[in-house]
């Protein structure tokens, strides 16, 4: 109850600050990026951190979500909620189609296969004229509000945390711990890996829809493998297998990126340096696999 009250209070406070203009455009943009990054990091963490399957195609699912939601809202004139549903479903479907064949692969092979699929999605988008080809789609109406962002982030995190704490989650973690042992325990490992992959992709698609309806323009380039790496960095930085870590790292990286925006020349160097230092002194990530418990998340 206390957590619920705290979350509500935080939501109202930010909403108030936006309304009266304390949080200007600049802060709002960063707040949006932060929420989207949290959803991306928490969902990728389900695949990479908890299931132990190294996926490098997260941006691909984000792209699927972004484009399908925009097609719904801008081209077919549907309300935002339909766009979001379409984003989630199509990204989940893409996750399923890609997951079933690739999740038989392990380690490096899976990483390369998912990287490849992520790029295929991008190239396919580039070649469909209906959605603007390489130029993308411009003039997307700004439907992503603070309410959507906040509710989206909370719901995504809650769903994933509850999944991990369920008996499904136990099976998922056992796959990371030892795939052969979990198979021997009678766990259908392919089924659970696909499940984690589909849920992860679904929320990446959701994040894509929120992104597209805030930043006015989407193009295939936005969703290149560099975006996937950004999210991967957050997950590794936060600690593979810690949802709290993923949230903290997503916030940290967003703030860091924003702060370094003013030093464009040294930005990437500083960014890389900070990552190297964290990896040397906290190779298990900021949180390891521990969680900072908020009861509402459990």
């Amino acid at each position, binding site marked *: 109850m206390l957590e619920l009250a705290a979350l509500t209070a935080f939501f109202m406070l930010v909403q108030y600050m936006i309304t009266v203009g304390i949080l200007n455009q600049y802060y709002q943009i960063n707040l949006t990026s932060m929420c989207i990054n949290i959803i991306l990091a928490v969902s990728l963490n389900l695949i990479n951190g908890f299931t132990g399957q190294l996926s490098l195609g997260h941006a691909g699912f984000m792209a699927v979500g972004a484009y399908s939601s925009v097609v719904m809202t801008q081209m077919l004139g549907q309300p935002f909620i339909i766009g979001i549903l379409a984003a989630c479903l199509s990204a989940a479907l893409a996750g399923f189609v890609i997951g079933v064949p690739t999740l038989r692969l392990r380690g490096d092979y899976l990483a390369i296969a998912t990287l490849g699929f992520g790029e295929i999605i991008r190239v396919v988008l580039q070649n469909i004229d209906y959605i603007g080809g390489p130029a993308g789609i411009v003039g997307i109406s700004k439907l992503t509000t603070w309410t959507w962002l906040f509710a989206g982030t909370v719901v995504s995190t809650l769903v994933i945390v509850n999944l991990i704490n369920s008996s499904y989650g136990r099976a998922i973690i056992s796959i990371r711990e030892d795939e052969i042992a979990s198979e*021997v325990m009678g766990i259908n490992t392919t089924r659970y890996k696909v499940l984690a992959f589909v849920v992860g992709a679904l929320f990446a698609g959701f994040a894509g829809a929120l992104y597209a309806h805030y930043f006015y323009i989407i193009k295939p380039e936005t969703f290149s493998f560099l975006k996937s790496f950004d999210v991967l960095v957050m997950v590794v930085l936060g600690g593979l297998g810690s949802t709290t870590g993923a949230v903290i790292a997503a916030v940290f990286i967003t703030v860091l990126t924003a702060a370094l925006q003013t030093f464009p020349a040294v930005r990437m160097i500083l960014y890389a340096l900070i990552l190297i230092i964290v990896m040397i002194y906290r190779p298990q990530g900021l949180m390891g*696999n521990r969680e900072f418990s908020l009861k509402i998340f459990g």
Partner: protein
Amino acid sequence: MLEVKDIDVYYGAIHALKKLSITIEKGKIVTLIGANGAGKTTTLKTISGLIRPRSGSITFKNVDITRTAPEKIVAMGISQVPEGRRVFSAMTVLENLEMGAYLRRDKKEVEMDMEKVFTRFPRLKERRKQLAGTLSGGEQQMLAIGRALMAQPELLLMDEPSMGLAPLLVKEIFEIIQDINSQGTTILLVEQNAHMALSIADNAYVMETGEIVLQGTAKELMNSEEVKRAYLGG
């Protein structure tokens, strides 16, 4: 109870098991001995459904399980103590045991079985909140055995339970195996420690490069000149 008939298993071009046949009667301890690379582990993996044979058949309690999914085979009553223990190191002892009963829905009985495991392995009870990765080798082996027992197996497949353990612990593990068997669980034991394995088994098979080269009662094999020379060091 288990009838493996003429199975052929390939790893790509490598013919790993050649027309292998094994029969296990209910209530017995059957051991499969042989050198490294003979195909012992492959045989276990094929029985538990992790590897598919190209030809031949496997029947368990008169049901053909040659193409049955591993999780269904576990549910039918075959569970495995895998080679090298393979406990879930980031999970606690208790969680590891719960994983063993993953497919079971009979909560009360699971709890009773958990108590049984703790009675058999008091060390595990003491350490039930500890992460499995922090246990000693012997304790991990006990945990792996306990975890397999949580599936309520009728047939227990054990892959080199003595591997990497001190002689005293090996002795303890073999006593535990005998005890599990005496309470009604049939056991297929894969071992490199031929002497120990033959001393507790009823029947035995000797494998070489994917084939059964000798079989008989454990006593017969213990006295066979060939086995003595090749596996018992004398």
